[in-house]
């Protein structure tokens, strides 16, 4: 039982990182109908930036700076490579983000160098006792930070006109333009936010074990997460992230005993298995809005 | 069935041969909205039957029910003597039901030619393999189909646009292409949803002409929905008027035109 709970909490920890990443994807998708494959690069860039800055400014300041920095980078990318594509087929844009990912990652790898880099977080692997359970502090930190950020985002989309503008722009850019929505601004906004979120997520990924040139792969976990939650739903992204994290963690702990025939490390693909199961029941994920069609 | 087919012809037809299409007490609602509420009518062979009514009255919904896009909660739809309720749209189409759409639903990236050829889809018999190889059968059938399509292109005067992607065509031409696509299906019944909406007079007159030719010379019965009263009242043999999904009146143009309910619900005092 204790084991289950601990595994569960680990899942929530990792899950909240997936959730942050998923939010980035969803925000960009909401505004542009594009899945930005550049997110992994921004994530790792954020972590690496922190690992350098932390030595100078200390951890928390470093996270703040790196978040702004990466948001800036994302904005620049959007302006240069994405903005010209307003009104273009989304898959072309998706491939462009892929090219961006390649470029950014090469640059970032240059800053990683040969060694594993440490983000210099204050939590390390220290656990806190918590109702008899040993819970790593960083998981608590991840969970809380995510909660706060999500609340802020929801407030933003709820209480400004940009939430609506994004959906409108995503649905039909030309018409949105005709309503005076500056699609460019909407794009920039979404990329900026997504970049920042990726940076935070990256930092958390770096806690405990550091960052190396392969860490970016973790960002792909967000893809099944956003499908589970529904591509265009912020709430869905969070739910999806947590679900994926928890299921994955439980599978890591128990599949070996319960279902060895699935092969070792089935955990690696559980996110996708979960995704398929959800889609069999709900073609638009848990909270995604169905495509509206009538003739 | 020959030209000039006005009311009497249709009436006589109604007596003589069984109707092509019958709709009985159909009811359809969406999350509270009653789109259709107890609509019944029958279309006789070679009849030109019109459905009119205010916006949101349920005209398009009726079309969607008949062509299998919507599944009504109650009622029955019989086409060529078969009950088609709940059949997949493509099977109903294969039976010979063709329609056009209110907002042009063409295949935008395809040329006029391909759009028309697609109308003939279910007339082809060859399969993937002979398609890949383009041997005998595929080639033969494609050529034959092309010949029929060219007739329609001539008939609708689309020759000039033959190779244009339809998305670049002016609205009016697109409407004509859609009509052509429906004709290419060699339908037993043709349903037109607002064929002249957004057309100027000239084009409206042409469209009227085409509709009459289709009915008179090809003997294809037509169900017509439009808001252009001039057109409807001139062409239709009979008119069904809907309001809020309910039938308000059914009769010859002359009858419904002066029906106070219709005037009040629909016509208003507009030009």
């Amino acid at each position, binding site marked *: 039982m204790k084991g289950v709970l601990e595994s569960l909490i680990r899942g929530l920890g990792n899950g909240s990182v997936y959730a942050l990443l998923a939010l980035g994807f969803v925000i960009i998708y909401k505004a542009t109908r594009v899945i930005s494959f550049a997110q992994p690069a921004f994530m790792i860039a954020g972590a690496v930036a922190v690992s350098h800055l932390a030595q100078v400014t200390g951890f928390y300041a470093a996270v703040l700076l790196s978040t702004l920095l990466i948001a800036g980078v994302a904005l620049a990318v959007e302006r240069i490579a994405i903005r010209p*594509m307003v009104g273009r087929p989304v898959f072309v844009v998706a491939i462009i983000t892929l090219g961006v990912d390649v470029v950014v990652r090469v*640059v970032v790898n240059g800053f990683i160098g040969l060694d594993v880099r440490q983000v210099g977080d204050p939590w390390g692997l220290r656990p806190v006792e918590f109702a008899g359970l040993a819970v790593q502090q960083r998981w608590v930190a991840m969970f809380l930070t995510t909660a706060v950020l999500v609340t802020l985002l929801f407030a933003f989309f709820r209480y400004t006109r940009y939430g609506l503008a994004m959906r409108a722009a995503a649905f039909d850019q030309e018409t949105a333009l005709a309503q005076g929505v500056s699609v460019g601004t909407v794009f920039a906004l979404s990329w900026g936010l997504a970049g920042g979120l990726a940076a935070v997520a990256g930092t958390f990924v770096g806690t405990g074990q550091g960052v190396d040139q392969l860490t970016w792969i973790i960002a792909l976990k967000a893809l099944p997460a956003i499908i589970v939650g529904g*591509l265009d739903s912020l709430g869905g992204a969070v739910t999806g992230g947590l679900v994926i994290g928890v299921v994955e963690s439980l599978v890591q702990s128990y599949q070996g005993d319960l279902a060895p025939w699935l092969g070792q490390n089935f955990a690696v693909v559980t996110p996708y298995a979960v995704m398929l199961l959800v889609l069999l029941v709900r073609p638009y994920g848990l909270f995604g809005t169905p495509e509206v069609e009538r003739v | 069935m020959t030209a000039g087919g006005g009311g009497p012809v249709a009436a006589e037809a109604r007596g003589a041969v069984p109707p092509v299409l019958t709709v009985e007490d159909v009811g359809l609602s969406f999350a509270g909205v009653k789109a259709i509420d107890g609509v019944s009518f029958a279309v006789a062979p070679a009849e030109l039957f019109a459905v009119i009514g205010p916006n949101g009255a349920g005209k398009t919904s009726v079309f969607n029910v008949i062509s299998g*896009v919507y599944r009504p909660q109650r009622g029955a739809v019989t086409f060529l003597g078969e009950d088609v309720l709940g059949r997949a749209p493509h099977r109903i189409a294969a039976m010979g039901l063709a329609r056009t759409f209110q907002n042009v639903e063409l295949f935008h990236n395809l040329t006029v030619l391909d759009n028309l050829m697609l109308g003939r889809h279910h007339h082809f018999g060859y399969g993937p393999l002979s398609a890949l190889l383009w041997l005998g059968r595929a080639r033969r059938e494609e050529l034959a189909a092309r010949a029929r399509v060219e007739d329609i292109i001539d008939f609708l005067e689309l020759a000039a646009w033959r190779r244009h992607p339809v998305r670049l065509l002016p609205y009016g031409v697109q409407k004509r292409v859609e009509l052509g696509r429906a004709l290419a299906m060699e339908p037993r019944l043709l349903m037109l949803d607002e064929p002249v909406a957004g057309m100027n007079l000239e084009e409206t007159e042409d469209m009227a002409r085409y509709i009459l030719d289709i009915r008179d010379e090809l003997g294809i019965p037509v169900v017509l929905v439009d808001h252009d009263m001039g057109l409807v009242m001139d062409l239709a043999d009979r008119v069904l008027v809907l309001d809020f999904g309910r039938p308000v009146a059914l009769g010859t143009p002359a009858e419904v035109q002066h029906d106070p309910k219709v005037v009040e619900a629909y016509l208003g005092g507009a030009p």
Partner: protein
Amino acid sequence: MTVTRRARRPAGRPLLYTSYSQDMALLDTRAKKVWLGVLLGVAVLSSGLPDDLLILLAGAYVAAIGAIGLNIVTGYAGQVSLGHAFFVAVGAYTAAAISGDPGGRVLGFGITSMLVWLPAAGLAAALAGVVVAPLAARLRGLYLAVVTLGLVFLGEHVFKEWDHLTGGPGVGRPAAVPELFGFRFDADSALGTRAQSLYMLMLVLLVVFAVAARNLARSRIGRAFSAIRDRDIAAEVIGVPLTRYKTLAFAISSFYAGCAGALLYTITGFFDPGSFNLLMSVQFIAMVLIGGVATVSGSIAGALFITLLPRLTQELPALLPFVSGDTTQTPNVFQIQVALYGLLIVLFLVFEPRGLFGVWIRARAYWRSWPFSY
């Protein structure tokens, strides 16, 4: 019909045809015939190129077969699939297993004839396609994309676990043996070097697959695919069964993918389950988009572009004196190579979103309206 059928010159057509069969021919214009002739000529002649280039091009041709396949399901039928790598893998392993050495470390049945393993690979992949289609048919746009991506990851897992078939990650297995009527294409022979034989083989196969695809595209099936892509409701209402055709699209596309997979590794002679990953799928998508959606010639161009790009970027840094070959410094040539790869893709698509095919269209449109500049 009221109007009698006439094979007359249609108004508004610049070219005169005396029969529909001419008008509907694959190469309906003289220009196309000439161009194709020239291109094929060049392709054949280039078998005189150095071996390493031939190997590269042979690979590009195989990739083109795969890209055409992806274009069928994604370009024509509009079902965006990131799962292509999976179907490629199915083909690769089917072929490798069939032609593999029965006594060997990994599964093999020792039937080396291409006539057996190539179709088998295609069919196995097609079958896989048919299996996933029902789920795919319910999904739209990027949902489908990510699900098919999931297919790649699940597949990767299976292939890594099933080491009796694949040899396992980091170890791998020998690929299918390209043997036809006793002739080995993967060995130097009287007819030419290994590279030359492979090159010609792939060239011929590419032509076959490309022509077949063009035929498909202009057939009722190709049209039905495009109809589904453009407006599925309308397609169904005019008589196109959606699910059946989506399934068909996946099947045919996967068949192409399977054959491509079977052939691809005969060139290296060896492959590893790690190869069939997201990157591969993405590269196929890139080929399709860069080449131009829903065009066979585009897919080929795209495949050449993507496959040759790394080679190109290898040469470029040589022109930039300031970058060092010292691998410990940043930036060094190798990093620049990778960066250029990404950069060129971005630039290209930003400036010509319709892909190489778009370039061609522009050029042609301009030519058509010459001498008027509009």
